[in-house]
């Protein structure tokens, strides 16, 4: 049950009511921002974790597979609330922006000032292009099915190319200790991480090698398929949280 309002009796808020409603908007926005900064950031740090923390974990197989798959969860849930109840197509962008704010704060204060890592070693990845497309697609189609299939896929497929301008330069080869490394690998070797031996990196492990050296597109399409499934799952989790059962009068 929800607060159904017959169109014949609908009157827009004016005066004091309108001001209060606007104040409520800002209150919710600020709370939502901090909620998503905290919760999405925690969720992301515990699941994507090292793949997003370190420049020498951002490989071509696991990073583009895991990051969008986990990254689409909160955007889907929040879109379900904001679109379904308010026709606001900003859930994905809001979530990813909140995540990035939290991530940057952590990278600067916890990783750099507290633990002395250079910030360029812990640059976060961005998912904002995918989030913008996800929001726009949901608004234009108003369809969970189409957004799941095409939006979920776009979110995954856009991830690696949108981050290559940030991280491509870290993949330049370096001759070091009689071997060829990337600049990113060298960061991992030089800047000592006591609890992070090289073998812990889950990179380049897998069998996505059928098409020679083109592992990235395979990973991205695998992620696209999984994101298309993950999106509706989290959409329904979001809907479950957004009950208006007890809202009878507004």
């Amino acid at each position, binding site marked *: 049950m929800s607060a159904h309002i017959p169109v014949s009796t609908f009157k827009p*808020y004016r005066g004091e009511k309108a001001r209060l409603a606007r104040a409520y*908007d800002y209150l919710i926005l600020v709370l939502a921002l901090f909620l998503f900064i905290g919760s999405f950031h925690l969720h992301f740090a515990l699941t994507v974790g090292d793949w997003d923390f370190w420049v020498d974990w951002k490989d071509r197989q696991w990073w583009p597979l895991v990051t969008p798959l986990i990254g689409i969860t909160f955007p889907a849930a929040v879109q379900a609330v904001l679109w379904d109840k308010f026709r606001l197509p900003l859930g994905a962008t809001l979530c990813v922006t909140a995540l990035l704010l939290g991530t940057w704060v952590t990278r600067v204060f916890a990783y750099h000032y507290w633990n002395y890592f250079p910030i360029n070693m812990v*640059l976060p990845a961005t998912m904002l292009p995918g989030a913008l497309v996800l929001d726009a697609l949901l608004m234009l189609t108003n369809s969970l099915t189409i957004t799941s299939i095409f939006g979920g896929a776009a979110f995954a497929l856009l991830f690696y190319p949108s981050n290559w301008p940030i991280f491509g330069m870290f993949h*330049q080869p370096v001759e070091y*200790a009689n071997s060829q490394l*990337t600049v990113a690998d060298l960061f991992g070797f030089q800047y000592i991480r006591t609890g992070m031996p090289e*073998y812990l990196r889950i990179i380049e492990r897998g069998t996505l090698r059928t098409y020679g050296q083109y592992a990235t597109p395979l990973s991205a399409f695998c992620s696209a398929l999984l994101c298309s499934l993950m999106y509706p799952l989290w959409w329904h989790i979001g809907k479950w949280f957004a009950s208006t059962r007890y809202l009878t009068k507004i």
Partner: protein
Amino acid sequence: MKTHFKTWLLALIGLTVLSGLPMSSAQAHGEKALEPFIRMRTIQWYDVQWSTQKFNVDDEVSVSGKFHVAEDWPISVPKPEASFLNISTPGPVLIRTERYLNGKPWVNSVALQPGGDYEFKVVLKGRLPGRYHIHPFFNLKDAGQVMGPGAWLEIGGAASDFSNTIKTISGEAIDMESFGLSNGIFWHLFWGLLAAAWLIWWVCRPLFISRYRMLEAGLEHELVTKNDKLIAKLILVGVPVLVLVLNEITANRYPDAIPLQAGLDQILPLPAQVNAGTVNVDTLKAEYNVAQRSMVLQVKVDNRSQSPVRIGEFSTSNVHFLNPALSLSGVMTGDNDITSPGLSIDDDKPIEPGEQRVVTLIARDAAWESEKLDGLIRDADSRIGGLLFLYDELLGQRYISSISAAVIPKFS
């Protein structure tokens, strides 16, 4: 109520006083946390030394030494098929510039061979001034960290003196401290501004209650305007095109980019340094006397060398038990190693060439308890491991044998 107020006031005053007391930061690395049988029977360190313990930011320091990979590797610990010689530091206060295993440079993880002997060298460079407690140690995959001898390093100078420039294969010199940072910030700001513009576009109008009411009233068509749809279409087409164009530009800019490197180094052990065959030691029995905090080892020594030898040291898990009858000034230990003159031998006469003798060694010291090595007798795997050093005083030779035996506890 009054009573509660007093309690809270006292607690608050107590906390304030406590917070004002000088506190030293924790400087241990969990050396004693790992089960003793792993510390004693995996990586057996010896001859570890630092080139200097006082230096400035941007100066280099090296730590070198040797280790024997125990033959009697615990069954419950995965074999060292991926191991990483690391340095325990409180963050990258030093950077690692070079690392050698048996004289070969290596950067990845390595497969070690049980029974193998290795020598290592790690070159570090001071990055942040301060006084730090540092260990070389091995990360063993699926087993944990086996600490080597610890030392205190004092790094002087200013953090701003640090520099770390390297060259790419194409010859471009890059500063590792700032490389790619401004570029990364630029792209985050670029996409952040686009996202912010999209959010502000929506947030500028009445949001939750107003829109919910309109939606419930069936006025959905008024909530999304033609302009909204136009902008959304621009995003839907423009963002993917922009992403692909930027990706292509970057790919053309760095045509030699390669994937992250994930190889496992293969470095063969040195010719045998421990159990080299000249002086053989066979462990017959080991008993731990709980009350006396002493390990009693019965060993059979077979001297196949050309000179008499004497037992000088028994070493396990960075605890060195020395035979006081020998002057062993050359024993290298870390600052935090325990060196005890508590090694006694029932028959300490030199073992002549060709002689086989059964001797009983008693390694007695409170270190068995303080280093939490006595926990061995309560472990699932209660075998001891360590290195026995024998000396040829005439020729100045040293022979090393590994010790390995099940330990029987004696409670009286």
